[in-house]
């Protein structure tokens, strides 16, 4: 990208270095922005979770009814009547559960999708507000992964993990209440089982999480290696490097296998362990429960709130088989629910890491703009004064309000650019431009030549304020560009870059990108000016031809003509052409040149080119070396001077 700025992969926080309060912040967004939906979700979760977890109560009552019939308290038909009542209650409560879990699914779909949409939009909006520095600093792939991986992790969290966790907590609470109601003693066995489960989960789950992190890193490494090799596959072939590439690949691949194996081993073990601790719990409860029952029969040995509500005059009452059997089901359910939590842990961790990166982007400092000078339509009144106009006059003026006395002055937009002792560095203390002074009169063509890394592109980065200068001043029509609103400043500058960056859409859309409200006629005119019209009308659908992936269906020269047309339609008084023609051959360049020549007519133009032939007819040629202007003048003057330019220019011929 920009010279001097090294791309680094800094977007991915290392494990353990996460921002604090990520979850809290995420929940806050959910609870404030989607209050009604979250509330509806909460109600549904509570109802369906409770409905799903009180089967034990029903069953206990049914089993108790059996007991009473056997003991002769009830007749069989009394017992049946009792059970029918329970069955009807079950139907009612379960039906409620079905309705609410159906509702929950729908609400969850709405909530998740809205949340994701809003997050996406927020991230994208924010990204549009970030300075170019951000895009020069971070690898584009890393920024992209926020939209793909991190958003996906959030989807998982909001649609699955969070509701599941809430539901689990409610289920566990309900189960605990019911269990304590029936028997504190049997509940104690469950508690022991739960402690065992938690200990194992912590140990095994911790190991699994550790290796999943390692797996993530290994995946990154492998992907990196693969990407590098595949992108350079032709070079690999040319140097017969295949075997070595495979050997190196084996190394990263084996490492990935190793951690992937470990990570999945531990996570695969977790479920059977939890499940079987549940099974053992089940057996122990059956054995101890029945043992107590048989050993004590009618003796009051059990403790539970059931006693208070069923006329035992306290919490102590006899343990019945119906309670033991109902407990079995509940213990199983309890263990299953714990298993559910352990299932969600990894996705919660991933979502947190994703949310962390998302917040990282949202917290980036946006591009600041303290400018107050704006660009307005202008007309000249009978006295020759410039006045603001609300019509499109085709003339523009800088509107400069003066804060001190409240007055407003208008300066006509002419396109004079002055750089006055400008210093600049992409990073502090590493100056790449030293004391650069340039004066471009309106309509002049200023060219920069010099070796790669001499600072040519940097200068243009400063004029449109992609970066801000460290010292000195840049003036546009006499106004310090720091005072000009960035959007107005950039509107007054047309730009053509080496990378054409066309967007998915029609040819028409792409040209119109320079001026959104351009009429079709304006677009045609711009295309004609750029010498692009001829080839466009020969395309299968003319101006309606769809372009995809940076205009892959066009030739390099055609793409460049489109980007010139795009600059032409915006009709700015100042143009910047950064290596616009350096990747096309000189014959095609001739055609493009015709486009640029007519575009440059009457405008102030900054042109950066590798080929000296492209800049020969510039009004002023600046020779840059290591961030300094070492020579300037027109071609003839520079040749006459026999300095660096002369050397550069004649370098091609000195061997003759």
């Amino acid at each position, binding site marked *: 990208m920009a010279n001097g700025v090294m791309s680094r992969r800094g977007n991915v926080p290392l494990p353990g270095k996460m921002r604090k309060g990520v979850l809290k912040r995420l929940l806050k967004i959910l609870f404030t922005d989607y209050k009604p939906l979250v509330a509806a979700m909460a109600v549904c979760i509570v109802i369906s979770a409770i409905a799903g977890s009180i089967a034990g109560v029903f069953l206990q009552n049914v089993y108790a009814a059996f007991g009473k019939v056997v003991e002769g308290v009830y007749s*069989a038909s009394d017992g049946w009547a009792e059970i029918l009542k329970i069955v009807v209650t079950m139907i009612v409560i379960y039906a409620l559960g079905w309705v609410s879990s159906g509702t929950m699914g729908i609400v969850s779909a709405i909530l998740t999708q809205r949340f994701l*949409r809003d997050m996406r939009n927020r991230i994208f909006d924010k990204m549009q507000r970030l300075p170019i520095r951000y895009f020069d600093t971070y690898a584009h792939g890393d920024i992209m992964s926020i939209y793909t991986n991190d958003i996906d992790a959030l989807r998982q969290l909001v649609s699955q993990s969070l509701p599941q966790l809430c539901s689990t907590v409610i289920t566990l609470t309900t189960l605990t209440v019911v269990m304590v109601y029936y028997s504190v003693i049997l509940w104690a066995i469950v508690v022991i089982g739960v402690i065992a489960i938690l200990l194992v989960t912590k140990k095994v789950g911790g190991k699994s999480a550790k290796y999943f992190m390692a797996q993530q890193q290994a995946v990154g490494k492998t992907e990196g290696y693969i990407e590098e090799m595949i992108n350079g596959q032709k070079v690999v072939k040319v140097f017969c*490097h295949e075997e070595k590439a495979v050997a190196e690949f084996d190394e990263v691949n084996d490492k990935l296998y190793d951690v992937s194996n470990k990570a999945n081993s531990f996570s695969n073990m977790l479920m059977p362990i939890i499940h079987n601790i549940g099974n*053992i719990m089940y057996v122990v409860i059956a054995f101890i429960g029945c043992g107590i029952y048989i050993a004590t029969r009618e003796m009051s040995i059990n403790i539970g709130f059931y006693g208070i509500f069923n006329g035992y005059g306290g919490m102590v009452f006899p343990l019945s088989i119906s309670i033991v059997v109902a407990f079995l089901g509940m213990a*199983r359910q309890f263990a299953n629910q714990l298993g559910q939590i352990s299932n969600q842990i990894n996705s919660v961790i991933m979502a947190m890491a994703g949310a962390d990166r998302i917040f990282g982007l949202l917290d980036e400092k946006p591009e600041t703009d303290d400018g107050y000078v704006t660009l307005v339509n202008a007309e000249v009144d009978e006295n020759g004064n410039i006045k603001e106009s609300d019509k499109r006059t085709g003339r523009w003026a800088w509107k400069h309000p003066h804060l001190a006395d409240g007055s407003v002055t208008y300066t006509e937009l002419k396109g004079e650019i002055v750089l006055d002792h400008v210093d600049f560095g992409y990073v502090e203390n590493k100056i790449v431009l030293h004391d650069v002074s340039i004066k471009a009169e309106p309509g002049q063509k200023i060219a920069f030549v010099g070796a*790669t890394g001499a600072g040519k592109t940097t200068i243009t980065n400063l004029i449109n304020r992609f970066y801000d200068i460290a010292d000195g001043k840049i003036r546009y029509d006499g106004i310090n560009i720091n005072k000009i609103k960035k959007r107005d400043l950039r509107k007054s500058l047309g730009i053509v870059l080496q990378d054409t960056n066309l967007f998915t859409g029609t040819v028409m859309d792409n040209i119109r990108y320079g001026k959104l409200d351009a009429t079709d006629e304006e677009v045609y005119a711009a295309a004609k000016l750029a010498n692009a019209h001829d080839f466009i009308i020969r395309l299968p659908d003319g101006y309606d031809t769809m372009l995809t992936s940076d205009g892959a269906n066009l030739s390099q020269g055609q793409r460049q003509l489109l980007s010139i047309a795009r600059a032409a339609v915006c009709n700015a008084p100042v143009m910047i052409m950064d290596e616009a023609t350096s990747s096309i051959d000189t014959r095609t360049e001739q055609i493009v040149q015709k486009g640029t020549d007519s575009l440059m007519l009457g405008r102030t133009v900054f042109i950066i080119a590798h080929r000296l032939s492209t800049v020969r007819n510039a009004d002023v040629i600046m020779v840059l070396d290591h961030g300094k202007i070492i020579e300037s003048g027109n071609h003839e003057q520079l040749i006459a001077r026999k300095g660096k330019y002369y050397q550069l220019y004649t370098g091609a011929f000195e061997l003759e």
Partner: protein
Amino acid sequence: MVKKLLKSLREYKKETILTLLCMVVEAGMEVLIPFIINAFGGCVQPKLSDGTYGEPNVGGMVLYGAIMVVAAMVSLLAGMLGGVFCARASAGFAKNLRKDMFVNIQKFSFSNIDKFSSSSLVTRLTTDITNVQMAFMMLIRTAVRSPLMLIFSIVMSFMIDTTLPVIFFVTVPVLAFGVFFIAYKAIPIFRRLFKRYDALNGSVQENINGMRVVKAYVREDYESEKFSRVSNELCVDFTKAEKIFAFNAPLMQFCLQGALILLVGIGSHIILFGNTALDAFSLQSLTTYSFQILMSLMMFSMIFVMLTMSVESAKRIVEVLDEKSDMVNPENPVTEVKNGDVCFDNVSFKYSLSAEEFTLKNVNLNIKSGETVGIIGGTGSSKTTLVNLISRLYDVTNGKLLVGDVDVRDYDMEVLRKNVAVVLQKNTLFSGTIKDNLRWGKEDATDEEIVNACKMAQADEFIAQFPEGYDTVITRGGTNVSGGQKQRLCIARALIGNPKILILDDSTSAVDMKTDALLRASFKKFIPDTTKIIIAQRIASVMDADKIVVMDGGMINAVGTHDELLSSNKIYQEVYYSQNRENGEEVSVNG
């Protein structure tokens, strides 16, 4: 396709089978426990023929209790081992698949490489493999376990009671039909939506790459609006699709709890009025079975979804595995390149046999060892194609191409390519030190050889300026050196192997004129016997060549020296004057 994929299982077949076995054992134990609890219950309250309970059989309770504990332990062991084997099998499967793909890609010829875009190859090697790995893991853990659980559970239920489990014949089809209907409805919709979602992400990528243009034209708001419009549409459509899935959970609960209600209702009736061995424990066991049956059905539907999702990935992987390199070493290859002569004997070439037009047409060209040959021509004039044939990166379609008087197809490819060094137009450096990168050209190059090559390539000077010198680490893609520096390093990398023929395919475009000239001077001085073929845009880069080839539309338009061509060839003149517009001036410059 499955067969093709499974070939990569190799040494992990054992683990796969062990996983399946463990899962069988686990399922068996899992199903056994509820059955035993029923028997256990029979011991706690043995039902007498008059409907009352007899004395508990404590011995039986202990026995059944012990059996259950053992069953749980065995299930635990089988489950854990199964998990471990399964992880190893699937990770190993993924490893082998990745390796097989990578190895096959290494065998690709240039035309194979051209077929796939590099980003698609990367996705196939990463995301697609991960998808297949996950699907495989799911599959071997549940493909056997779920149906077994289903069958065992139904059988066991009937062993407890012969009438009650008939209920399952209602709930199972309801759930199965419902779940598969939902999946059937939703999956195609999701597929379509995911495509659109990818398109949205594609436009984000475009936006990030084109950020300079976006900002230069002050189109931030426009882009935001465009994005949020699509994002909004997607939100609406995704919500609609996900609402279909919203019926999954209530359907599941309906079947589960419906079965429970039926079990309780009908079961109670039987217990109260019928003469049966059923009791509370039996009902408990049957509810457990009902749960297990429906769960295995759900698992089944999950596998189904997962598999359909990963079919695309599997297809893409197999595509790479199936791609056969169209270039193989000859039998009894020639292993020595005698000299740097190159002879094109009526060579024609097209990239694919089905193409109508030839990319190169009837090329005849003789180059003698040690000559410097320049090639000039517009984009699309097949300059690159021409030189790529020399090191047999592509095979000629018609005619013959001789290097050192031997047809290139008769050489051992490695020998040929070591002797014909190509500096590609789109070249790359790899992460590693400068030395590492240069040793690509010659594995055992000494430090002295490296420095020499760099001096020749005019790279020594800037390398020496780096604090770490030749040990400077090049970042991935070579982003920490400038374009011109990168090109010179690539040239040095090609020079180090002391090739008989050196081909520079527009390899000095980012190098400044002066260095470019120095480069050519040093070639002349240090490697006079090496044939040098230089493709260039600048006339200056080729004008001192022994002969210059002018290419146009896949044919040789003219061959001659600078002076000859300048006086007689129209294309050459055009190119020349486009670069030196004011004819005559360079005379004054030189004069």
